[in-house]
């Protein structure tokens, strides 16, 4: 191959000697760390992994017993196409599924609703009824492969659908594992797939937690996401602080229903981001594990140590990836996976190198999966627990990050608590201002990004990225299959179950039993959502600009 001449901007390589280095969380980084720094920041945490406060990991043996679950985010077009990709990933050694739904499903619309033109099957799999779930998980053993549903606004409906599908296939719900994202408060902050106003949305989350605690006790009905808050502009400390405020809001609601903390806290899970400075991220996860254990075990007085586990999927790193020189994203992904492994994540999912352009190709997903596998098989990341423990730098930073997280949580409390701050749009405003400041720093070169403001290929050619095809025909097929379901189901049953759903919603009962009944009668996502909207109304976004 011939080398083409490339103009490059190299000037921002070196940080000027003497300039302060401050991490994204606002902590100044020293040139050298010693034992004294660890002592001054709060001392070395001598607890062992598997023992509270779990700073070093929630399990005693961590990856020696079982490497993290590899769970790439996947879903497009319809249930059949997605099922095929699921099998491809499982055949390549993927150990869990992480389902992407299209926007109509996420926002509670049927595929033939007038509002969804151009969106059916575009950013994920289209789901209208239980029929789609039956197809999507065909041939997949739900005991062997745990399934995570990335669904929020319509989560209660999709959880009902998953439980109904599993039950129909003969699984005992008492032993069924799996996760739903179901973190609506963060949807109001970033990501935006809300449907109902804040209060009824919170009520639905509590319904799912209460229902699962009683009927599917191993299922994780909520995965609290600092991830998207970070993507929206929050720094790593705020990512954790806000996520914990949100988790506490859900806990408080469920406690009010008379459940004991130990009946459900152990099934709460979390979703965090891994892009950024390696040491800051590792310290973030270690600090967060310790802080969360203290919150649940000390503040809430849980008796079972497992209730204080910070179980998490760490992943993505979408905001760290660039549209410029997309191949660099393969390397970034490898570093992010290294961060996840050094941080003791239970599950990992990497954004693919082509994701700034398109739904990942099979090849890009294959590279991401292999990236994680080779960390386990070749690089030694599964050999010992919490390998960075004892580093003066990491231990100091762990202490400092925890202190900063506590401060971030107190600031939210001072604003009247997370629910009020989100309802008024204040958290949204804060992270959005930070996103703007970050963009300015990128443009001024104060914050370095390879390929974006340094080492820029000024004559960069169109990248060699294969775009995922979107066929209007697929949307038409989805609509046809939806109409077929509407025609062949027993419509009197649908009417009856929807009437019960309305009655239960109006009388403020837990809606899960009614939803499961409606799902089993093949009521559609749109039909069930509309019943809830009739009672709850729709969310009105507070605009603070």
């Amino acid at each position: 191959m011939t080398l083409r001449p490339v103009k490059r901007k190299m000037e921002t390589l070196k940080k000027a000697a003497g300039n302060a280095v401050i991490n994204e969380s606002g902590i100044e980084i020293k040139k050298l760390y010693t034992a004294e720094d660890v002592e001054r920041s709060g001392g070395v945490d001598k607890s062992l992994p598997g023992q509270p406060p779990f700073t070093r990991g929630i399990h005693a043996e961590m990856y020696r017993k079982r490497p993290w679950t590899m769970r790439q985010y996947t879903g497009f077009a319809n249930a059949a196409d997605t099922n095929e990709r699921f099998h491809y990933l499982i055949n390549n050694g993927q150990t869990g599924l992480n389902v992407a739904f299209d926007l109509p499903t996420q926002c509670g619309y049927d595929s033939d609703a007038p509002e969804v033109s151009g969106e059916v099957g575009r950013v994920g799999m289209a789901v209208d009824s239980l029929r789609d779930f039956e197809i999507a998980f065909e041939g997949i053993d739900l005991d062997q492969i745990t399934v995570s549903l990335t669904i929020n606004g319509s989560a209660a409906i999709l959880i009902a659908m998953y439980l109904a599908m599993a039950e129909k296939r003969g699984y005992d719900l008492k032993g069924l594992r799996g996760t739903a994202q179901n973190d609506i408060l963060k949807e109001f902050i970033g990501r935006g797939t809300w449907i109902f106003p804040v209060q009824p949305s919170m009520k639905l989350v509590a319904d799912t937690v209460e229902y699962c605690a009683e009927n599917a006790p191993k299922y994780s009905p909520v995965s609290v996401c600092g991830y998207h808050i970070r993507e929206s502009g929050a720094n790593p400390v705020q990512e954790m602080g806000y996520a914990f405020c949100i988790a506490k809001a859900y806990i408080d609601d469920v406690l009010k229903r008379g459940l004991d903390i130990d009946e459900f806290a152990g099934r709460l899970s979390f979703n965090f981001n891994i892009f950024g400075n390696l040491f800051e991220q590792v310290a973030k996860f270690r600090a967060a594990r310790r802080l969360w254990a203290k919150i649940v075990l000390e503040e809430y007085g849980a008796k079972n140590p497992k209730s204080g586990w910070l179980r998490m999927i760490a992943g993505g790193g979408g905001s760290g990836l660039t549209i410029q020189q997309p191949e660099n994203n393969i390397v970034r992904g490898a570093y992010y996976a290294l961060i996840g492994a050094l941080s003791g994540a239970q599950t990992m999912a990497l954004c693919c190198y082509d994701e700034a352009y398109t739904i990942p190709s099979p090849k890009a997903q294959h590279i991401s999966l292999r990236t994680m596998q080779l960390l386990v098989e070749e690089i030694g990341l599964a050999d010992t627990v919490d390998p960075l423990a004892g580093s003066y730098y990491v231990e100091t930073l762990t202490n400092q990050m925890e202190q900063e997280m506590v401060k971030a949580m107190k600031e939210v409390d001072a604003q009247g608590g997370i629910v009020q701050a989100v309802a008024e749009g204040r958290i949204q405003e804060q992270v959005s201002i930070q996103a703007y400041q970050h963009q300015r720093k990128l443009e001024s070169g104060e914050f370095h990004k390879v390929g974006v403001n340094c080492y820029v290929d000024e004559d960069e050619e169109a990248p060699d990225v294969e775009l995922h095809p979107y066929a209007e025909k697929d949307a038409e097929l989805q609509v046809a299959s939806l109409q077929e379901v509407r025609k062949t189901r027993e419509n009197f049953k649908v009417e009856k179950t929807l009437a019960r759903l309305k009655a239960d919603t109006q009388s403020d009962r837990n809606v899960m039993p009614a939803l499961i009944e409606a799902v089993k009668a093949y009521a559609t996502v749109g039909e069930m959502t509309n019943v809830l909207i009739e009672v709850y109304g729709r969310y009105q976004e507070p605009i603070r600009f």
Partner: protein
Amino acid sequence: MKNTIKVLMAKPGLDGHDVGAKVVVQGLKASGFEVVYLGLRQTPERIAEAAKEQNVDVIGISVLSGAHMTICGRLGELLTANGLKDKFWMVGGNIPLNDRDKLRDLGFDGVFPTGTPLDEICNKIKEKLE
């Protein structure tokens, strides 16, 4: 020509990724533009109506879901029908190379894919309107 350029910004369709839209809103304001931000889940009908009501000079939308061709096609028709063809139309987000000319053909003067510097957006608007 008025002294201050007035911009309407909105997120059409169901896509909830509004980081970019809000960054652009703040960038335009910092550069002296007057900005009305409608928020998420706006229909093309609502955007066209608001553009007329508010008498804006610029209509901007941000789409990251990939549905930009469908949405921009419909919005373009409505803006034209409402006599707003001479305004500056702009679209940002995940816009593949192959679609950029097609969007310009639909009447979108500004096509700003992810990563476009804020100053470039401001300058393009001023160039056209001043």
